[in-house]
C-alpha cells in the first residue's frame, strides 16, 4: 500500500469540492497543501478538510476495526479520531508525515479504548458471567452506536473488501488467513498493534517507533516476538498447515 501512490487531487492548489465518499490516498505534498489551505481559512478550508478526511477515513477505520474487533466501537473510534485530527490540525508541526501523525492519533485512541474496556470487563461481574472475559474479546452484548444497526458483530465482520485480487488463492491460504486474523484478535494489544501497522498499513520502522512510542532499536525484536506469538496462537487453535 504505497503511501504516495494514489492519484493526486485535481489540478492546482485548491482542494476539490464534493469529492466522492472514499478518496484515494494523497501524496505527501498534496496533504501539506491541504493542511495549509485549511489553516489559511476561507472558502478553501472546508474543501481541504473534506478531501483530507475522505482520504483518511478508510485507513483510520481499518486500524480501529483490526484493533478493537467490533464494528460499532470501531466506527465510534473512527469518528472520534477524525474529529481529533481536525481539531488538532492547526498544531500539526510537520515534523513527521501527516499519515504517521494521523495513525498515531488513531492508535492512541484504540489503545486507550482497549485499556478502558479491560478495566471495565475486569470490574463487571455480569460480563464475566456472560463469558466475555477479557475486554479484548469481541463484545457481542454491546449495541451499535449509530452505525446502521450493526450490533453484536464483533470479530471479523462481513462486508470486507478485497485488498487485491486473489484469483489463484488456494483454499489453504484462505483458511490460513482466517486463522491468522482470528489469532490476531487474541493477541495482546501491543503485539496486535505492531502487526496491524506493519503488515496491514505498511509502516516502516521509523514510523512504527514514532506511532507506538518505542525506541527504534527495539522495533525489529518486538515485531519478531509479535509474529512468534501470532504463530503460536495459530498453532494453538489447531491450524498446522505448513503454508
Amino acid at each position, binding site marked *: 500500500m504505497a503511501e504516495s501512490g494514489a492519484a493526486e487531487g485535481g489540478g492546482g492548489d485548491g482542494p476539490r469540492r464534493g469529492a466522492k*465518499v*472514499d478518496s484515494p490516498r494523497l501524496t505527501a505534498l498534496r496533504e*501539506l497543501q491541504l*493542511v*495549509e489551505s*485549511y*489553516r489559511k*481559512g*476561507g*472558502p478553501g*478550508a*472546508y474543501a481541504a*478538510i*473534506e478531501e483530507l*478526511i*475522505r482520504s483518511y*477515513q*478508510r485507513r*483510520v*477505520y*481499518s486500524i480501529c*476495526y483490526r484493533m478493537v474487533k467490533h*464494528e460499532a466501537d470501531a*466506527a465510534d473510534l473512527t469518528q472520534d479520531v*477524525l*474529529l481529533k485530527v481536525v*481539531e488538532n*490540525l*492547526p498544531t500539526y*508541526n*510537520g*515534523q513527521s508525515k501527516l499519515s504517521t501523525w494521523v495513525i498515531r492519533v488513531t492508535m492512541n485512541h484504540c489503545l486507550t479504548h482497549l485499556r478502558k474496556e479491560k478495566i471495565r470487563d475486569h470490574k463487571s461481574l455480569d460480563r464475566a458471567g456472560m463469558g466475555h472475559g477479557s475486554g479484548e474479546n469481541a463484545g457481542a452484548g454491546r449495541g451499535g452506536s449509530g452505525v*446502521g444497526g*450493526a450490533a453484536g458483530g464483533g470479530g471479523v*465482520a462481513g*462486508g*470486507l473488501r478485497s*485488498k*487485491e485480487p*486473489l484469483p489463484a488463492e488456494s483454499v489453504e*491460504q484462505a483458511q*490460513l*488467513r482466517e486463522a*491468522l*486474523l482470528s489469532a*490476531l484478535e487474541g493477541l495482546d494489544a501491543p503485539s496486535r498493534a505492531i502487526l496491524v501497522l506493519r*503488515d*496491514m498499513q505498511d509502516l*516502516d520502522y*521509523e514510523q512504527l517507533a514514532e506511532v507506538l512510542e518505542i*525506541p*527504534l532499536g527495539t522495533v*525489529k*525484536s518486538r515485531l*519478531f516476538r509479535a*509474529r*512468534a506469538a*501470532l504463530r503460536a496462537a*495459530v498453532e494453538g487453535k489447531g491450524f498446522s498447515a505448513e*503454508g
Partner: protein
Amino acid sequence: MMLDRADELEIASLIEGELDEAAAGALRKRLSRNPAALALMERMQVDRAVLRTAAEPALPVDFFERIEPMLARPMLMEATAAEARLGVGAGNGVAAGVAEPIVRPGEWRRQVRRRSRRVVWSRLAVAAVVLMALMAGVWAAVNGVIGALQSADGVDERMARNDGADGSSAATGLDVERGGVAENGVIHHYRPEAVVMRDAGAEDAGSDVRVADADGELKLVPAKFVLVVQATDAAGVEEAVGRSVSAISERGALVRNFSFDEARKLEQEWRMARGPGISGEGPLVSSTEMIESTSWITPERMKILARRVRERLDVLNAGRGGEEAEKGPMSGQISGAKELAPTLEQQLDFSSRGATLTVSVPVADVVAFVERLNVDEGQATVLRMMPKRTEHDEAGAEEARALDLWLSEGPEVRRAVEKMVAEQSGAVVLIPVIVEGKSTSQKVDKSK
C-alpha cells in the same frame, strides 16, 4: 528450540525482506542445524505474506458526513480574522443547534504571532518615548563610530580586498558601508571583530555577542539545536530556506558558513608561509592532528584558527592583483542584514559540525520558520540537539540517523526551544543548518 537475540534479529530481517539472496541462504544453512527454528522462520514468513493479503474492512458509513455538522463550517467558509474573534451568529448560516466551533482556522498562527508581538511591543513601549527624539542622532552617531572603527582596524579594507582584487566592493555587489544585503552571496564574509562588543568574560566561540545597531541593542544567541534538512536537491535547499526566512521575519538572515575544511587548509598554508617554530602564537595542535580530527577544538583554539584564516586571506587577496577573488566553498551573506550574521568563529564552529548554513531568526519565530519550511517548501526537516563533532566526522552517516536522533532528542529539543522563547524572547537566534542529501531510492527496502 533456543534462539539467541542475534538469531532472532537475523530471522526478523529475513522475514521483513531485508536480506539478499546470499544472506538468506546463509541463514537457512545455519538454521538447518536447528530444524524447529528453521520451520518457525518459514512459517512466520508465510504468515506475513498471507496477513498482507487480508481484506480491508468496508466503511460502514461515510464518516465525513457524520462529522460535518460538528465542524465549524461557517467559520471555515467565511471567517475573517475579525469574525473569528467575534464568533459566528445567526446571520452567518449557522444551522440551529450546531455546536460552537471547535476549530478556528489559522488561530494557532495568529496566537503565536500575537504572543511574539506582545512581548516585543511591551518592551519597546517603555523606551519608545525617550528614544524617538534621539533616534536620528543615535543612528548617525553609531554609523560614524562603526565607520571610524572599521577604518582604524583596516577591516573595511580587508573585506573589500576579500571581495575583489581591486579592493572595490562594488565588483562583488557587497556594500560594506551600508551593511546591506549582498547581491551575489559568493564572497568572503564574516563580521569583523571590531564591531562586536563581547560580553565580559565570554570566551566560548558560541557565547552571546551583542551588536549595536541603530535601533538599540541586538542580542544574537547561538542555538543549542540544529536544523537538519533532508533533500534530494541539496542545491535547492538554500533557496527554500532563504524564502522561509524572508517570509517569516524582516529580522532574519541566511548565511553560508565558512567551510571548516577550507579554514583548515588556509591554516596549513599560514603555517607553511610562516615556516617552523611559530612562537608566541598560543596553543594550537600539530598539522596532522588538526587535519585528521576535530577533537582538538576548544573556544581558544577556534579563535586562533579564525585569526590565522583572516591573516592568510589578507595575504592571498593582497597578492591576487587583477585576478578574480577566489570562489569556492566561501561563506556568504545570502539574505538579510549583515548584523545578524554569525562571526567567523561561530561559522567555523557550526561548519565543523556539518552545518553549511546558519539561519538567524527572532526567537519567537523559530517554530513558525520550521513549520513554514515544512509546509510551504515541502522540505523534510528535523530539529535535533547540536551534534558532537565526532558524529559528523564518521563517514557514511546513514539517512536514518537524523530521524533516529530526532526520536530520541525530540523532547530535549522542544525543551530547548521553549526555554529560549521564554528566556530570550527579544533575541535573534542563530540556528545552524545541516543539509543531508536524500537518495531517491531507499538504501534498504524496509517495507518489503
